[in-house]
């Protein structure tokens, strides 16, 4: 197994007494799709915020590609190839779709010049199928298109680790199918993906491994089948009915 | 290829420019007839709005009298006088802009300077470059006149002289004055007066127990006054603009802080100081460059101090102060110089001004080498009841110094 891309040791974050994330430790190997599941309020988004420097950890450490990044700021994380999408989409409203993605390419993607960045951005738009809307202002997009814009922007940042925060929330089943294909294509480019997801269909069809978070603590880790059989996970999150269906 | 929108825009900009240019030429078309044009930048808004209005009233009184008498005798013919006024909003850059405009655009023959030493310096700087004589009616700090300007003349005597007399007279009249507390406003004239007072006090053996400055924009003097009270000084000396001094005197009342001599520079010489304080103003001494109870007779448009006083009271319903008198006197002196030179040639009028040695309703005016009116015994005044009473010099003495009533 090659050196882990991301090593998390004893990461803890308290918001006024409540331990949103408590002593979480795990490693992410490069090139794999890892699912991060858990009930609402389990601390999934907080964990992502800690990894991408939006919040500062109270204790514990983060190693990315062998370098200690515990105290990194969001833009440093982005430039190191650690990009994320937001649960609530955060576009640059008055900029065109093309410029939104160009921003990613120009800064984190380290494009040579604005013109070069625009070319890379156009490529990403074609990849996610938004090239027709290139000139439209980002604010005018529908929800699924916005989700794809987020994806295109993150890809333009040439990430090595992509954190997708419920990127399929609010999509209908057809759109989810397309999204799964898209994520599989992204992973095929050698990008490691950490997927926060509630839809078990997506999780079990895409992920190589699973991390289960509950009350800020990591209660299970391993292949989807093993995790689904774990009584703690069933009791905390999956529910007994689903577990039986899975085993049958 | 410039598209339609930019042509449209250029067109509008050009149109806007021509319109404004037309407006300017219209206003300056009048220089053809033979009229003496005097430029007057005044602060009608902003921090000095109150003082600016005082100059405006005085200029207008002189102007009406001169034109009523047919104008100024320039050599063979009498020429009417036109006064061009602009509001420089107590803003230094605007004052410079207006001086430039009056000289180059409106082609004025002479200029008057705005209120205060700072802005006088700015206007004088411009006038000096063009060689246009400037009459400064309210600038009394040496720092204005030591710039080597040849075309600048000021009717106020140097402010140093005022405090010297006070130090001598007050200590003689009121025994036991051993300590003085000085509070000055950090501004050109008030700062100079506070510094002069410190020197005069030390020269007369009075211990300076407190000497501080307060910045422009101070809304409260309690801290300084409390400290001054603690020094037990018998003489309190405070300089500033009228609103600073009204506030300071009121706060002295608030702190039950009094001293045998309370001197506030140039507050009491203004009517609004007495109106604003009522009985608190009683006993406050000050010094001034002029007082309406002076009895000068003069062969100028006003004829005598009395006549100027009567016309001012009739018009403004209150007593004139030194700013009104000095502003009118500045134009009287200019008129005399023009008549003496017999021409509007700026250099000749300048020389006539430099050689001025006349008596006006405002008092004797004789310019020294740097253009300032010669120092002489300046009136020391005290508020007694609601009247402003001159104590010195002897010819106008109308009362004797009374210590301030303790609380």
């Amino acid at each position, binding site marked *: 197994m090659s050196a882990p891309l991301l090593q998390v040791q004893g990461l803890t974050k308290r918001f006024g007494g409540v331990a949103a994330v408590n002593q979480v430790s795990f490693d992410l190997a490069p090139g794999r799709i890892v699912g991060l599941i858990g009930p609402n309020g389990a601390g999934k988004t907080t964990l992502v915020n800690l990894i991408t420097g939006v919040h500062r950890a109270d204790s514990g450490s983060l190693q990315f590609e062998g370098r200690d990044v515990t105290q990194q700021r969001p833009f440093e994380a982005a430039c190191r190839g650690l990009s994320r999408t937001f649960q609530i989409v955060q576009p640059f409203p008055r900029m065109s779709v093309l410029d939104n993605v160009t921003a990613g390419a120009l800064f984190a993607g380290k494009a040579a010049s604005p013109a070069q960045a625009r070319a890379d951005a156009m490529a990403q738009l074609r990849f996610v199928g938004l090239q027709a809307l290139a000139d439209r202002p980002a604010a005018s997009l529908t929800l699924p298109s916005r989700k794809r814009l987020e994806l295109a922007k993150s890809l333009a940042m040439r990430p090595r680790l992509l954190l997708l925060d419920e990127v399929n929330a609010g999509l209908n089943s057809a759109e989810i199918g397309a999204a799964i294909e898209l994520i599989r294509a992204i992973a095929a480019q050698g990008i490691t993906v950490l997927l926060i997801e509630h839809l078990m269909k997506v999780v079990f069809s895409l992920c190589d491994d699973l991390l289960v978070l509950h009350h800020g603590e990591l209660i299970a880790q391993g292949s989807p089948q093993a995790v689904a059989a774990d009584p703690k996970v069933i009791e905390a999150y999956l529910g007994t009915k689903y577990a039986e269906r899975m085993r049958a | 290829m410039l598209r339609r929108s930019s042509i449209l825009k250029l067109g509008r900009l050009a149109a806007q420019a021509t319109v404004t240019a037309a407006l300017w030429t219209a206003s300056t078309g009048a220089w053809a007839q033979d009229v003496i044009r005097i430029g007057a930048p005044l602060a009608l808004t902003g921090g000095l*709005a*109150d003082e600016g209005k005082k100059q405006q009233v005085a200029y207008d009184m002189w102007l009406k009298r001169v034109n009523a008498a047919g104008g100024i005798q320039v050599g063979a013919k009498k020429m009417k006088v036109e006064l061009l006024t602009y509001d420089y909003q107590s803003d230094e850059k605007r004052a410079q802009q207006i001086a430039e405009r009056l000289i180059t655009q409106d082609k004025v023959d002479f200029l008057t300077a705005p209120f205060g030493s700072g802005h006088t310096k700015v206007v004088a700087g411009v006038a000096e470059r063009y060689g246009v004589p400037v009459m400064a009616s309210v600038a009394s700090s040496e720092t204005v006149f030591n710039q080597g300007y040849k075309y600048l003349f000021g009717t106020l005597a140097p402010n140093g002289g005022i405090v010297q007399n006070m130090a001598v007279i007050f200590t003689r009249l009121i025994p036991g004055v051993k300590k003085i507390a000085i509070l000055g406003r950090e501004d050109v004239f008030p700062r100079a007066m506070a510094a002069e007072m410190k020197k005069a006090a030390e020269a007369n053996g009075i211990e300076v127990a407190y000497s501080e400055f307060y910045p422009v924009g101070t809304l409260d003097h309690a801290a300084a006054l409390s*400290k001054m009270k603690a020094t037990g000084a018998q003489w309190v000396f405070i300089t500033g603009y009228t609103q600073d001094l009204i506030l300071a005197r009121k706060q002295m009342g608030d702190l039950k802080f009094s001293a045998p001599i309370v001197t506030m520079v140039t507050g009491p010489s203004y009517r609004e100081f007495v109106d604003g304080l009522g009985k608190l103003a009683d006993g406050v001494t000050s010094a001034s460059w002029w007082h309406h109870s002076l009895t000068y007779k003069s062969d100028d448009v006003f004829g005598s101090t009395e006549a100027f006083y009567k016309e001012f009271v009739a018009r403004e319903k209150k007593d004139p102060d030194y700013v009104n008198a000095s502003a009118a006197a500045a134009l009287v002196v200019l008129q005399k110089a023009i008549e003496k030179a017999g021409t509007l040639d700026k250099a000749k009028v300048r020389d006539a001004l430099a050689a001025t040695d006349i008596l006006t309703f405002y008092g004797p005016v004789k310019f020294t080498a740097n253009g300032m009116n010669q120092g002489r015994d300046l009136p020391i005044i005290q508020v007694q009841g609601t009247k402003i009473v001159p104590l010195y010099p002897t010819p106008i003495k109308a009362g004797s110094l009374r210590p301030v009533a303790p609380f």
Partner: protein
Amino acid sequence: MIGLQILVNGLTLGALYACLAVGFSLVWGVLNVINMLHGSLIILGGYLTWYAWLHWQVHPLAALLPVALLLFALGWVIQMTMINRLVRQPVLTTLTVTFGLDLILYNAMNVLFDATPRRITLDLGTLSLGEVVLAWDRIVAFVLALALTLLLYAVMNASRTGRAIVAVRMDRDAAELMGIRINRVYAMTFALGAGLAGACGALMAMVFPITTNISGLLLGKAFVVCVIGGLGTVPGALVGGLVLGLIESLSGHLFGPQNAVLIGYGLMLVLLMTRPTGLLGRKGYE
């Protein structure tokens, strides 16, 4: 003992600063509008009170309420006609509009009253407690500052309008959904702010020489008090005022009047950088 006198000076000055800032803090806190008109409104209140005292011998304290109501109406008109349409605009726009209005009001007062300093020469005398001396008009200011703050606190908490204002402050859109007529609430808030400015002006006429020249200074003080005290709370202005009064009084004594005001600003900048919500600041407006 001069220390006690300094403390008293600081508190009475602080009370004045609180009066001055309470209306400004309300408008900034609730409407998110920096009201550059506030200084001139205080001066207008002062001029009206002075005028009533000079011509009809109305005692300033008696004139306080009518003047406040008059400015309340003026505030309502200004808000309804102009500010309402701009409340959602960024700070640059609202600040610029109120700056433009301030120029108009300033010029109008300059023409009507001209800039000569005026003061009501009504001395309420002083109160001596041992060596410490207190002027009655400053004591009245102290009482008024407390009264205005308590009144505002009561209005904000007890009355329906008050709760509406708080709701709007917390979340304008949600409040609108609850059936609160936003424009009326904004008009009420801006008018209340103007009324408070009027009340403060009436009081100032006894203490300060009223002249249009100091309208900018009063506005500057309101800025500092709001930042120190913190937005979003009624007692914010009171606490901010008292703290600033004490700081200026103390530093005036220790470092001389030259640096007193400077240190006040210095404290504000430090707070702005470390604790922008100020000493008491919170999101809502309780």
